């Protein structure tokens, strides 16, 4: 009896002591830190978590909840979230997706925040990359990390043929390619270049058109302009690599590009920054025998501006807190640290002064190239159009269509895709870009 009474007394005491804690915590939530949700994709979504403690120490009032989303599902998930009114506060967006979310009117314009910021100045970023975040003169995203395509080449193969430096112009590029093919021993399959033809790989032809001074779309991005002379010339230059056997149509001769590059089955390719580390890791035997270089020059040496930006969604209740986090991620110090974790190239130019970036010859080419990058057309239909470029050129590469047929079909398909856009503009349902 006595024991029972004491137990109930203990329990009631516990309740008396614990109960106020609930009220206390409820009461405190008013002044408790605000929690912002941040959707990040792929590897970034995992790696960003290690930077959070530092941010939360500097900003005790803000908690960041990171949700990692696989790249493959990201686009669909974001659109579904928009339709269901459950977008996060802050999100990482591929910079070709910004026009799409701009068309949805889902993004918070950042101009006034930039004007009042002590950390973020447009000049601190690569100009071409910054421009991918500007639509109709308004800034909708802040570059987080950058991506572009450069020339990867085998130094030893080129040196053996008497070329101590990578091709600087298109003419030189073609000349070297022909020499590589001619130098192949009997019975040996040697290609000069490798251009990926898989679905989605539209970058190489697009870069060639850009650097030949071509515009991809005309009349306020309402019609395809692929039949214009600069574009036609660039596409012919591209196709001739396949027609003359200077680039393979299929990957029959090698398992993957790393093995093909290591065995010098091809000596040059155009690809992105992630392959610098992949080649180092997978083909250590060719260390020192290869490097990277900015694109060979036609009219200019522009490449395509890629990468990911940080955006705030319009219906976020805490744009201010989200902006603080963007500011934190955009400081040169954080950018360097993020580079160390992910190897993603920093968007802030001052971050490139860090020794591991300054002294890395392969990264150097990217820095030079990033000063000459050009955004793809800032319209939501762009990715759809890009796939069409690849689709029709693939037919020409395989000889199922002539170049002019491919161009005509491409223009027709692109004009059809843009029909909606023309209708929207003529009825003033969207603001036109130019």
């Amino acid at each position: 009896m006595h024991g029972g009474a004491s137990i109930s007394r203990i329990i009631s005491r516990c309740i008396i002591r614990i109960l106020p804690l609930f009220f206390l915590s409820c009461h405190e939530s008013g002044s408790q830190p605000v929690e912002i949700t941040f959707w990040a994709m792929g590897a970034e979504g995992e790696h960003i978590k290690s930077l959070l403690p530092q941010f939360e120490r500097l900003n005790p009032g803000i908690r960041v909840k990171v949700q990692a989303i696989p790249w493959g599902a990201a686009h669909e998930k974001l659109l579904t979230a928009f339709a269901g009114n459950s977008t996060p506060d802050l999100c990482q967006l591929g910079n070709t997706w910004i026009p799409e979310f701009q068309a949805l009117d889902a993004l918070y314009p950042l101009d006034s925040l930039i004007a009042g910021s002590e950390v973020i100045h447009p000049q601190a970023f690569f100009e071409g990359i910054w421009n991918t975040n500007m639509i109709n003169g308004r800034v909708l995203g802040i570059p987080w990390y950058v991506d572009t395509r450069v020339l990867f080449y085998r130094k030893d193969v080129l040196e053996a043929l008497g070329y101590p430096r990578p091709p600087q112009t298109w003419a030189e590029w073609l000349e070297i390619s022909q020499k590589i093919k001619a130098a192949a021993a009997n019975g040996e399959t040697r290609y000069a270049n490798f251009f990926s033809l898989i679905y989605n790989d539209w970058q190489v032809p697009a870069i060639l058109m850009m650097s030949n001074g071509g515009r991809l779309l005309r009349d306020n991005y309402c019609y395809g302009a692929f039949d214009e002379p600069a574009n036609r010339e660039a596409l012919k230059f591209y196709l001739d690599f396949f027609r003359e056997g200077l680039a393979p149509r299929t990957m029959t001769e090698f398992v993957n590009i790393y093995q093909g590059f290591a065995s010098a089955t091809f000596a040059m390719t155009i690809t992105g920054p992630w392959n610098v580390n992949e080649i180092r890791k997978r083909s250590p035997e060719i260390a020192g025998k290869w490097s990277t270089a900015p694109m060979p020059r036609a009219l200019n040496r522009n490449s395509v501006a890629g990468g990911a930006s940080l955006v705030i969604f319009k219906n976020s209740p805490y744009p201010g807190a989200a902006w603080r986090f963007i500011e934190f991620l955009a400081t040169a110090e954080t950018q360097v640290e993020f580079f160390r974790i992910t190897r993603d190239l920093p968007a802030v130019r001052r971050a490139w002064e860090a020794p591991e970036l300054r002294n890395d010859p392969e990264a150097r080419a990217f820095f030079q190239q990033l000063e000459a990058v050009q955004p793809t057309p800032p319209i939501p239909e762009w990715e759809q159009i890009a796939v069409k470029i690849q689709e029709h050129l693939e037919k020409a590469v395989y000889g199922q269509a002539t170049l002019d047929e491919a161009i005509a079909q491409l223009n027709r398909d692109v004009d059809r895709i843009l029909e909606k856009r023309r209708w929207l503009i003529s009825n003033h349902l969207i603001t036109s870009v130019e």
Partner: protein
Amino acid sequence: MNKNLYTPFFFLAPALATLLIFFFLPVGAALLMSLTDFDIYALGNMDRARFILFGNYLRALSDPLFWKALFNTGYFVLVGGPLTILVSLAAAIALNSKLLRFKKFFRLAFFMPVITTLVAVAVVWRYMYHPRFGIFNYLLSFFNLGPVDWLGSSAWAMPSLILLAVWKNFGYNMMIFLAGLQAIPDSLYEAARIDGANWWQQHLHVTIPQLAPTTVFVTVITIIGYFQFFAEPYVMTQGGPVNSTLSIVLYLYQQGFRWWQMGYSSAIAFVLFFILVILALLQSAIQKRYQEAL
């Protein structure tokens, strides 16, 4: 009187409500959507959608990719369907034979692909199809044939996917055939043997007619399943090379979820639906006539 009329509906209500909410409403919404040009612009603001009546259907008729996808799907169904049925019938007869040992092992082995995830299977098959290091080309090299670029050439990509689909799916049909075979009374074979029928004649005149209802069922299931050909090209080829493995469902998925052309995508889905309805009607007509003949 009234009470009697309402009682069945009362009991049917849960099922009817489920059907209504999860089937008829979405299908109705999709039908409506297929009459508009609903796209990414319209998602943000419904003013930007146009009611275009049969525009999407007409667009499909003049879209070479749609026809290409329809052709590819037809190719897959017409070649892959009969092949799957023949292989599963052969496997079922073999497994039903009294001479075979380790039946349970083979049954499990043949059924294994059916229950394995296609994505996992695809990884292995991609290696097997590799032009230089894959086992298929290795085997061909003994006969001085090849190498064939299985998934990389537009001529071979579809046959390669058909082979994969047959291997992946025949086990399921085989089980159904096996059940059908076991239902055939031994006395029929006995009678045939007394009449002097050999192995081949026994199967031709006893097994095949006795299996007719099972075959009709298997054919319907296989054809309907194969018309929805999607996962194989989605994981193996993404519809390439040069769209030679683009199927109807893959095409409508790309239009809908990659480009958010929901209107057009719904229209394609309805075209596929009508094709399947016609096939099902045809099938039931054949079956009815067949049963009358019996």
